[in-house]
């Protein structure tokens, strides 16, 4: 009956962001129309402070608080910081774009802030409930953002699809969670893990294993929807294509980190004892994503759709890291494998930010530079940004020595270490197929005559940040080890023991 007030200190970042979002909401309601870009400024400030708060409170300790629902560990902290920076970057890129199209309203930034809060909650969740609610907060904000350009029929349709399919996926996830609850009597992830371990030890484990597996399938399906892997990928191209590019930028970046965290919390944190089962499920989905993503991307003429399919194949690659952790019950190499996945997710987010950033850069009011043909002769219009785009494409294709190469390499290494050579071979072959459409973009930029000869005009903050982003891709390719070490450190500190 006695209730002890929980320790709020570890959750200070989330509390701060939640509080600030309410403050911003109230402020912007009472602000005059002209002073409303204060919403943007405050949102950015909040995100920066949140990142700094996380950085300064970061240590290697694992602390569980708020009645077992919140866990503060190094993986969560690292991902939270990256999510903040990713959203900050996405907002900077997208601001001019949104303003040109007249949906640069305070609610736009507010929803972005709420989605960030949702991601933070997901990343730090130690409980089915908090995980699910974080996911819903993220999803709801994103549905709203996709439809934000409300006069565009395409955006509205995309939002509708995203909403309905997302609701279906949420249903699946929730159903799976309820099944696991039924089998273990626990909603806390660490409790679930303990219960499964105990059952395996005490009972024969058969009885509730069926129920567990039943729940596992549904959970994996819900997870797969969030990651956007085959066959739960159908929303990805339509939503990426239909959403305003500034929103696509937000959907295609930070939520992937959150989805990775969700996979780690659910599968590794909660259901690790079922690893051999979910690994096989992930394998089927990874193979499907690699094949379908890369091949379908070739057929695309729309850059956003192409990047959507490429995103599907990248998520397939990410799964490859997750599924190579446990080999025949041997968990020795698991953290290395998950490290490669985390590194891949981070690398993908950095590349994805830059690639959609280029689309935004080339767009202007009344014109969307979203077809591959719009990149024709970019070299003649701006050789600097053509070079930047080339870096992105090379990196995505996995050409040495950009970050994408090392991301692929580390995943392939974990596959080989897990004796899944055929998967590695398939992944390499599909990367080669993928290289085709990335290089086609480069070819179009350098060897075709420009169709659109309008000069590029974009705010200098976008130019500088985008250049820095692209150079980071190249630079991290030269110094990948530090980032890999960071991922490894984070996972070891969070999941060791």
């Amino acid at each position, binding site marked *: 009956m006695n209730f002890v007030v929980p320790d709020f200190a570890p959750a200070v970042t989330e509390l701060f962001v939640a509080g600030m979002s309410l403050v911003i909401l109230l402020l912007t309601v009472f602000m005059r129309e002209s002073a409303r870009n204060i919403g943007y400024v405050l949102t950015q400030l909040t995100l920066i402070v949140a990142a700094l708060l996380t950085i300064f409170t970061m240590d290697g300790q694992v602390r569980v608080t708020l009645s077992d629902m919140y866990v503060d560990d190094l993986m969560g902290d690292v991902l939270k910081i990256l999510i903040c920076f990713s959203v900050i970057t996405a907002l900077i890129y997208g601001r001019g774009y949104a303003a040109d199209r007249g949906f640069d309203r305070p609610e736009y930034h507010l929803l972005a802030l709420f989605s960030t809060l949702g991601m933070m909650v997901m990343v730090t969740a130690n409980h089915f409930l908090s995980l699910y609610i974080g996911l819903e907060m993220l999803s709801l904000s994103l549905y709203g953002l996709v439809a934000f350009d409300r006069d565009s029929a395409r955006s509205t349709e995309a939002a509708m699809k995203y909403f309905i399919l997302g609701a279906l996926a949420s249903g699946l996830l929730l159903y799976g969670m309820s099944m696991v609850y039924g089998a273990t009597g626990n909603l806390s992830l660490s409790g679930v893990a303990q219960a499964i371990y105990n059952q395996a030890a005490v009972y024969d484990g058969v009885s509730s294993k069926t129920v567990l*597996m039943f729940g596992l*399938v549904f959970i994996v399906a819900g997870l797969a929807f969030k990651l956007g892997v085959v066959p739960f990928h159908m929303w990805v191209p*339509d939503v990426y294509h239909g959403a305003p590019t500034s929103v696509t930028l937000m959907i295609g970046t930070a939520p992937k980190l959150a989805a990775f965290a969700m996979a780690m919390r659910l599968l590794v944190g909660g259901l690790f004892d079922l690893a051999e*089962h979910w690994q096989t499920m992930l394998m089927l989905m990874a193979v499907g994503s690699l094949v*379908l993503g890369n091949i*379908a991307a070739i057929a695309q003429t729309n850059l956003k759709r192409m990047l959507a399919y490429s995103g599907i194949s990248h998520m397939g690659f990410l799964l490859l890291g997750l599924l190579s952790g446990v080999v025949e019950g041997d968990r020795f190499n698991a953290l290395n494998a998950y490290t490669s996945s985390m590194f891949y997710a981070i690398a993908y987010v950095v590349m994805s930010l830059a690639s959609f950033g280029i689309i935004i850069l080339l767009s202007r009011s009344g014109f969307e530079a979203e077809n591959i043909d719009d990149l024709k002769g970019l070299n003649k219009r701006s050789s600097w940004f053509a070079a930047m785009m080339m870096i992105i494409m090379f990196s995505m294709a996995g050409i040495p020595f950009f970050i994408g190469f090392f991301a692929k390499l580390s995943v392939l290494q974990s596959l080989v270490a897990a004796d899944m050579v055929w998967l590695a071979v398939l992944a390499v072959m599909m990367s080669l197929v993928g290289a085709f459409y990335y290089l086609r973009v480069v070819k179009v930029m350098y060897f075709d005559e420009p169709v659109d000869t309008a000069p590029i005009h974009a705010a200098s903050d976008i130019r500088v940040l985008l250049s820095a982003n692209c150079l980071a891709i190249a630079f991290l390719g030269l*110094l*990948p080890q530090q980032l*890999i070490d960071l991922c490894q450190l984070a996972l070891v500190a969070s999941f060791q023991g």
Partner: protein
Amino acid sequence: MSEMQNLYLVVPLAPLAGAILAGLFGKAIGRTGAHVATILGVAVALFASILIYQDVQAGNTFNGTVYTWATSGNLSLEVGFLIDELTVMMMLVVTFVSLMVHLYTIGYMQEDPGYQRFFSYISLFTFSMLMLVMSNNFLQLFFGWEAVGLVSYLLIGFWYTRPTAIFANMKAFLVNRVGDFGFLLGIGLVAAHTGSLDYAEVFAQADALSAKTIELFPGAPWLLISVICICLFIGAMGKSAQVPLHVWLPDSMEGPTPISALIHAATMVTAGIFMVARMSPLFELSETALSFVIVIGATTALFMGFLGIVQNDIKRVVAYSTLSQLGYMTVALGVSAYSAAVFHLMTHAFFKALLFLGAGSVIIGMHHDQDMRNMGGLWKYMKITWFTSLVGSLALIGFPFLSGFFSKDSIIEAVHFSTIPGAGYAYFCVIVGVFVTAFYSFRMYFLVFHGKERFGQAHHDHHGDHDDEEPSDDHHHGLAPGQKPHESPWVVTVPLILLAIPSVLIGFFTIEPMLFGDWFKRAIHVTASHDTIGQFAEHFHGAAAMAMHGFTTLPFFLAMAGVVLAWFFYLVKPEIPAAIMRTFKPLHTLLDNKYYFDKFNEVVFAGGSRLLGQGLWKGGDQGVIDGLIVNGTARTISLVAQASRLLQSGHIYMYAFSMIIGLCVLLSLWFSVV
């Protein structure tokens, strides 16, 4: 020690910074800015190298990682430096010659529109070369190796509007790929059998390696160490232009002259020599590989010298003499006289850079006419160039007391003492080579600087004999009738003088520590039975004595005979060479066609690969690959794309349905599992 480590980093990074400045911001900083930036970079590198030299002399060597790039399993890819006596000597040579060439370029390229680009390239080259020599592991070595190759490719094709230049750089590129393939195989074998790419770790396992065998063909075991060494040496053959992979070097003269001096004479082409010397602990274990090295080197030394005799292009003569001298170095490697090879590498770098820059100065004076038949009597007009070229030529032919004498004679003596199979043939080649070297060197010298003034007349117009690679056809300005050549500006002549000084002196002062002292004791490993230099040392009583003795030896007489013969043929009786040419027409044709190496390559390799390509194209590619795989793949892909487009219909219930089906499949699969 960490201060020294920073200094080590400064050496390659300073030229890199210069290259980046001049390359990316060339327009912004202008011509003056470009050369100031790059020259400053190289000068800093030279200065740092001198400091490191003093440090090494004090006994402080270094072998360690400065930066780990990525760890891949047990194999770590890192950037590391190995600073010892060999490295520091190479660093000094590279930075010094590079600095001279940078200065010289200001004058040579002053009218060229690609001025900044050129400076950026040569600084980039300096960076790459320094990375190569300072490396402590195979990966970085390979990086430097490829990077210098790349810059060389870019620079040979510097005047990219000339078709001959493009042909030449393509050729250099392809031939070097052959060598690199061997090199990469060698590195791969090393990595596979030792599990390390670090020099020190590999050398520590060298003895274990020598016990292993490898079956290249079933039933025929080879000593692993021999295979590794020969593979590595094939890499060296490509880079250091040894027969039969030498064909690219003469054509590389299409590049601007400063490049010929820096890359294709003094530094890059010696990378192969340096690499073999660095790998001495491996090569010492394989007599087979050493024999192979000797035979290739000796053949190059002699037969490439012959070709120098029939060339009319001033740069090509120097190019063939470079080939021949590289042959000498290779022979020295083969007889385990690594220190002599490196010693010759150093002296050669100075006097050959001098000769090339002298040739360049002549070319400037002649307004970019390179044909020696249009020159003659230049000594009156270009006093400094004339004198320094004379010094360079004397050094090249090994006139006693000049630097070339010490290094070349040491090699000849070392070959004399060697007992490795092939040493006899090599001894013959190097001895005859002395005569040939003297003959073509002074043929060039007399044709250019003495005799009748043939410039300012109508040009010789028969390029028909080998017009496929006659350089600068569209670049022939030449002197107008009545125009006189004039001495080059100071930025050209100062480097000549600065290079002439070491060409004269350096051999005399360094032979004792480098060959017989313990300067290379730590860097180079020689087994006792191969120790030809040690045997030579017993006969050595100081540099002066060796030089005095030099006046009485066979090589000296041969060299003098060559000089006298050249004088007689080309100054006294110029009709004789023509008569000989007519009499020995087939021989001349053979030489003029460079032993038909190019023809052979063109017909057999290029033609053969074209044929093979045709066959593969028609049969394999169009039939199998295009028909079945590519078009098949394309068809499959378009089918899949069609199918996915059908599924991706935009109808939401289709999407939801596909999710449900996916779920259903997963569920069913796991029900059959559980």
